[in-house]
């Protein structure tokens, strides 16, 4: 439902929006009191653990759990046989949570036990006898597309895949407009390049964890760390064959998600164990299980063809993207293909994306899913062409930048957007003209992300002493509770500390889309504003009753109900607290609520700038300086907006320089731990400067745009461009780990 008509976006002087108050959950988190997924216990609780396939691809011929079940302290063993046939919507999810006919990757769950202690559970796993028939496997995307590649599934390609392709090709997407060959003919220089990136993991520090209980009547309770407890409720209810009302899910505090916790892994299994044992069952993943068997992002293989005039105008842009999404269809290659050239105004543009399966864990979303790898290829190609032509990389981007009225490469016409503002601000920033020393180079890149809305419920309830309870349904992964309280306080005209925002369990609200797509400040924010407006209307009504005047003659201003003008009579204003105190006398408790499928989320653009220094003897790359320029529409809480910019940039740094999934010839993951899957540490990095631009989003009452995801899109190319400049050779393959950089230096 479009909200323009109801909400309006007139600019205003904000009292609270744009300030930096302390977050409500801050004290709990700095004292260790906050409860995360693994921090909950229940009396009589059992410990659940999962048995996982040691093979990358194998038929499961039989599972004999009798010895395990006989072990003292073991209460139940669960396999796929315990689950009834699921609906098509959740079939792949269930198969990923508990393998059926085949184990499709190293670490794929094949059975689970619930036992009186972790030690007994570990012992029990060893007693489960699984007979496997190992099959040939494939982990590389291009190898999986080749004729004769080992096939994971038969006949699952959809109607978009032409005849004759490997059965591992699930879908083909295509976007764009114009005529590429005509465009290339107009170019003075044409670049053809191929790029590769490896799979990476979101790397949240908190492993998946949950505590499940289920009674014989089908009523169930689940505590889990998730980005969307309503999604968990709906998915688990579908898998277990109960109604959504029977399962109440409470979201714990979440120790990072980034998209990796927008689906389920342990939860249906924990519920099934709880059902079978009649006891609460707690399940927590180890770090190795998180890396082996949750949802890393796709590895990619991308071909680019780009044509440019000698003045720097892009005449044609073509990309073919091949992504592997792990063992099931759904690699985010469609979004990669749509976002690849989104920052540019192009007459001739075409992207083709291939969704391919491999014997790897099922990919889950990772912060702007599909976009970073595509941007890596596109922004590297633009940079290489610009430098070849002797042109300034920022000026080339400005020359081709999309603006209001540009037809996007993925179809729609852009409304007001902030790309040029980020580019100009970057060009005029002192970072751009700072001097560079030997072995140092500077890189820039642009990025884009869609941002989403979705189903949202907010319930705002006022207590007798005039404090405001705000209930919403989106787990807080970045500090959003503070922003909701700020928006409610701004709207109601009360101090920030009079509002308390909580994340309600699934019994309290109807449905909420997961915390993803950079949607929470936007969608939950606008629902909060609408709920507050509803409460204000009710409070004006109460004041009108007390004063004996018409409802229409009462307005809300500066935290109080007031007569709208002298004709309405002389009545001193009634504050929210005063009206709350007499709520029972005037009809009952006061509340406002709002439910909406929020639409109209604004797109968001960024430009990143980075300086690197490369050690010519080791190939080690040091990040010297990093600046993020990104459009936030309206920064509700600037510290948390900066935090999103910085966090996304650093994940991009890790992806560019170090992080990768390494499989051996048997398809077994070699680096399933934080020592060898190395994410950036404090000593790797400089301060990350964050420049917030504000080009308001017309679809939100305060102009808010999502910010959480865009900041991971530019860093891969920005860093590759900087490293390429540092060493005088292009790096087209990520990660740019020291051996690869050294090889590039030596091959110059």
């Amino acid at each position, binding site marked *: 439902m479009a909200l323009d008509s109801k909400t309006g976006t007139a600019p205003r002087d904000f009292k609270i929006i744009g300030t930096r108050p302390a977050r409500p959950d801050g004290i709990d988190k700095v004292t260790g009191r906050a409860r995360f997924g693994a921090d909950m216990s229940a009396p009589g609780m059992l410990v659940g653990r999962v048995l996982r396939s040691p093979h990358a691809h194998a038929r499961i011929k039989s599972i004999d759990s009798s010895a395990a079940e006989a072990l003292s302290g073991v209460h139940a063993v669960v396999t796929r046989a315990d689950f009834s046939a699921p609906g098509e919507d959740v079939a792949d999810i269930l198969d990923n949570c508990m393998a059926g006919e085949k184990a499709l990757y190293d670490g794929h769950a094949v059975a689970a036990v619930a036992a009186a202690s972790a030690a007994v559970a570990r012992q029990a796993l060893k007693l489960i006898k699984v007979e496997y028939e190992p099959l040939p496997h494939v982990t590389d995307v291009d190898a999986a597309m080749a004729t004769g590649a080992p096939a994971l599934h038969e006949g699952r390609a959809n109607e978009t895949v032409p005849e004759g392709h490997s059965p591992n090709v699930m879908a083909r997407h295509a976007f764009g407009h114009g005529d590429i060959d005509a465009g290339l003919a107009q170019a003075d220089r044409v670049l053809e390049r191929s790029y590769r990136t490896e799979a990476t993991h979101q790397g949240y520090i908190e492993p998946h964890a949950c505590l499940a209980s289920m009674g014989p009547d089908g009523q169930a309770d689940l505590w889990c760390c998730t980005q969307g407890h309503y999604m968990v409720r709906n998915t688990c209810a579908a898998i277990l064959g109960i109604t959504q009302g029977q399962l109440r899910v409470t979201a714990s505090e979440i120790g990072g998600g980034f998209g990796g916790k927008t689906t389920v892994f342990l939860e249906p299994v924990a519920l099934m164990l709880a059902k079978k044992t009649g006891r609460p069952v707690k399940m927590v993943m180890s770090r190795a299980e998180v890396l082996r068997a949750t949802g890393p992002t796709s590895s990619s293989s991308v071909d680019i063809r780009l044509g440019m005039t000698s003045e720097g105008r892009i005449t044609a842009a073509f990309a073919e993207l091949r992504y592997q999404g792990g063992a099931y269809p759904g690699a985010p290659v469609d979004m990669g293909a749509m976002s690849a050239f989104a920052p540019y105004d192009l007459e001739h543009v075409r992207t083709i994306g291939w969704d391919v399966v491999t014997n790897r864990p099922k990919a889950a979303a990772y912060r702007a899913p599909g976009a970073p790898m595509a941007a890596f290829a596109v922004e590297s190609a633009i940079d290489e062409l610009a430098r070849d032509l002797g042109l300034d990389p920022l000026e080339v981007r400005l020359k081709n930048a999309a603006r209001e009225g540009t037809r996007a490469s993925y179809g729609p016409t852009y409304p007001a957007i902030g790309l040029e503002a980020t580019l100009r601000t970057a060009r005029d920033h002192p970072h751009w003209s700072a001097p560079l020393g030997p072995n140092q180079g500077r890189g820039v890149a642009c990025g884009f992300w869609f941002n989403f809305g979705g189903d949202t419920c907010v319930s705002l309830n006022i207590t007798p002493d005039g404090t405001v309870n705000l209930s919403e349904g989106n787990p807080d992964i970045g500090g959003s509770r503070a922003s909701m309280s700020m928006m409610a306080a701004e709207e109601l005209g009360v101090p920030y500390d009079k509002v308390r925002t909580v994340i309600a369990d699934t019994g309290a609200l109807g449905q909420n889309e997961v915390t993803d*797509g950079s949607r929470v400040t936007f969608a939950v924010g606008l629902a909060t504003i609408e709920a507050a407006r509803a409460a204000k209307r009710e409070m004006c009504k109460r004041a009108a009753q007390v004063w004996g005047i018409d409802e229409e003659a009462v307005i809300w201003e500066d935290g109080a109900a007031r007569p709208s003008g002298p004709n309405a009579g002389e009545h001193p204003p009634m504050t929210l607290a005063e009206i709350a105190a007499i709520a029972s006398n005037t009809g009952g408790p006061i509340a406002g609520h709002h439910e909406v499928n929020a639409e*109209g989320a604004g797109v968001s653009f960024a430009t990143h700038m980075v300086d690197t220094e490369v050690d010519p003897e080791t190939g080690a790359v040091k990040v010297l300086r990093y600046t993020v320029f990104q459009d936030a529409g309206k920064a509700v809480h600037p510290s948390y907006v900066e935090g999103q910019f910085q966090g996304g940039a650093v994940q991009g740094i890790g992806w560019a320089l170090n992080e990768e999934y390494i499989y051996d010839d048997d398809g077994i993951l070699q680096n399933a731990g934080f020592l060898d899957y190395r994410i950036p540490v404090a000593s790797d990095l400089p301060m990350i400067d964050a420049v917030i631009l504000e080009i308001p989003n017309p679809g939100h009452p305060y102009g808010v745009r999502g910010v959480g995801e865009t900041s991971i899109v530019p860093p891969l190319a920005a860093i590759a461009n900087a490293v390429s400049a540092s060493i005088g050779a292009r790096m087209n393959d990520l990660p740019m780990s020291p051996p690869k950089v050294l090889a590039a230096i030596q091959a110059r």
Partner: protein
Amino acid sequence: MVQVTIWGSLAAATDDQTEVEIQASTLRELLDGLAARYPALKPQLERGVSVAIDGRIYNDSWFTPIHEDSEVVLLARLKGG
């Protein structure tokens, strides 16, 4: 009649036309109209699409109004992380 832009790979289902015209005043009527006129589009419509109306993205809101001069683009279903 509303003009709808069909993205690249779907054009195969609309006889290679990337711009089609459908009688519709809401999003639901648009999608139903497309399915009726171009049955080959049905698998993708069932998998889910997003629709951009005058530059803003809509997912499932059936009664979103569409005006004759609106710019309407059919997109892949968008989801975030």
